[in-house]
């Protein structure tokens, strides 16, 4: 590239500082600009100043959050390890690759490079954190008489989390309710949580199905009360998605209604 072309390109990138501070770049341009930021000290200072300005716009929007949000976040915090590894030993530890923040164990990690002053966060990471936090929150609430069942479930959960190919994913319906999964394709295991769904009326239940192309849905079990996770075993590697339907008490051999939510399994290593 000629010097002039390079200067023009640089000039062009500089002009993106304000749109960047306002988050008004699409992901491709954002990436290019952040790459440029790492080598441009004067831009870093400018972006920092413009970002402080943009953040002040946020102050006119402050609003009291729903009261229940505080309990949920604080419960999740109690069950969620921090990055890097600064947490005390007794906190449930997760293999880092489950969070989506690090490559799988076999790959070596590139040396850490200098980053812009705020770091974009991987959406998958927070999604995984919420799924896993809800698992541990449920475990913490088990009463003594349920302890045996809980312990066996806890073993399954730890089994999934320890699998080298364990991955987490979440999906949501158009009303913001969500389904979360931590799964291992090699073990054929998945832990599935529903959040935001009321218990169906009239004794009906939420039933989980494995979906495969050219195959009938296969029941993976019924969700219990509240947000208790469902441990699904024997998942086929070729499964493409999970689906949840509302069924009569005791469940059905085949779904009798449209799924209320579905989650693709490709990102967690299934569907081959």
């Amino acid at each position: 590239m000629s010097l002039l072309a390079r200067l023009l390109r640089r000039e062009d990138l500089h002009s993106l500082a304000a749109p960047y501070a306002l988050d008004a770049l699409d992901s491709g341009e954002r990436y290019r600009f952040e790459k440029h930021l790492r080598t441009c000290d004067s831009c870093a200072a400018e972006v920092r100043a413009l970002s402080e300005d943009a953040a002040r716009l946020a102050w006119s929007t402050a609003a009291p959050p729903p009261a229940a949000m505080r309990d949920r976040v604080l419960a999740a915090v109690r069950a969620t390890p921090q990055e890097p590894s600064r947490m005390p030993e007794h906190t449930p530890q997760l293999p880092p690759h489950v969070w989506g923040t690090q490559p799988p164990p076999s790959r070596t990690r590139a040396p850490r490079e200098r980053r812009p002053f705020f770091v974009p966060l991987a959406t998958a990471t927070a999604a995984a954190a919420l799924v896993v936090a809800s698992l541990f929150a449920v475990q913490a609430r088990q009463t003594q008489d349920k302890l045996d069942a809980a312990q066996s479930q806890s073993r399954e959960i730890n089994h999934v989390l320890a699998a080298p190919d364990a991955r987490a994913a979440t999906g949501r319906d158009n009303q913001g309710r969500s389904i979360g999964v931590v799964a291992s394709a090699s073990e054929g295991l998945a832990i599935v949580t529903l959040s935001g769904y009321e218990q169906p009326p009239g004794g009906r239940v939420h039933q989980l199905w494995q979906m495969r192309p050219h195959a009938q849905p296969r029941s993976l079990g019924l969700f219990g009360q509240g947000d208790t996770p469902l441990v699904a075993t024997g998942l086929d590697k070729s499964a493409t998605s999970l689906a949840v339907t509302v069924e009569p008490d005791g469940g059905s051999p085949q779904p009798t209604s449209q799924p209320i939510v579905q989650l693709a399994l490709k990102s967690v290593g299934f569907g081959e």
Partner: protein
Amino acid sequence: MRVEADELLVLVAGGDQKAFEELYGLVAGPVFGLVRRVVRDPAQSEEVAQEVLLELWRSAAKFDPGRGSALSWILTVAHRRAVDRVRSARAAVDREQREALRAHHPAFDQVTEEVEAGLEREWVRRCLDRLTTLQRQSVTLAYYDGYTYREVAERLSLPLGTVKTRMRDGLTQLRKCLGGVA
């Protein structure tokens, strides 16, 4: 307030849950309000805000006090998430619906009317009012509505370069106007 948030975030990075509770008290309102302003849908806003707040706990160690205030960092993270969510939601809406929405979109300056009472709000509103119309529209369509500068240019029928300049000028004018208010 700003200093307090900075100090708390450093404690949070060390695993201090009490400090996180205090930090939550300081930032949950701004984070939730900002996310709701951009995302609009209440259930989705709550979900995004929750993810952001939990991410603060997990990634507090990434905060570098030498490179900006904690509050700005937190709101930047929250805004980025909110914008990503609203854009993926928009991408899901098919073209026809989008056109219909566009036709019914209220006046661009609605934000200044939606802003409620309060000293901070009052100042921001006053300073936004002092911008030129194009500066204000460029800044608010991007920041409050989550549009890219290309989309803003399209909506306002302006060349890309003009929108970039208006955004920069708008932010710099805001800085001057808000200068004395912390």
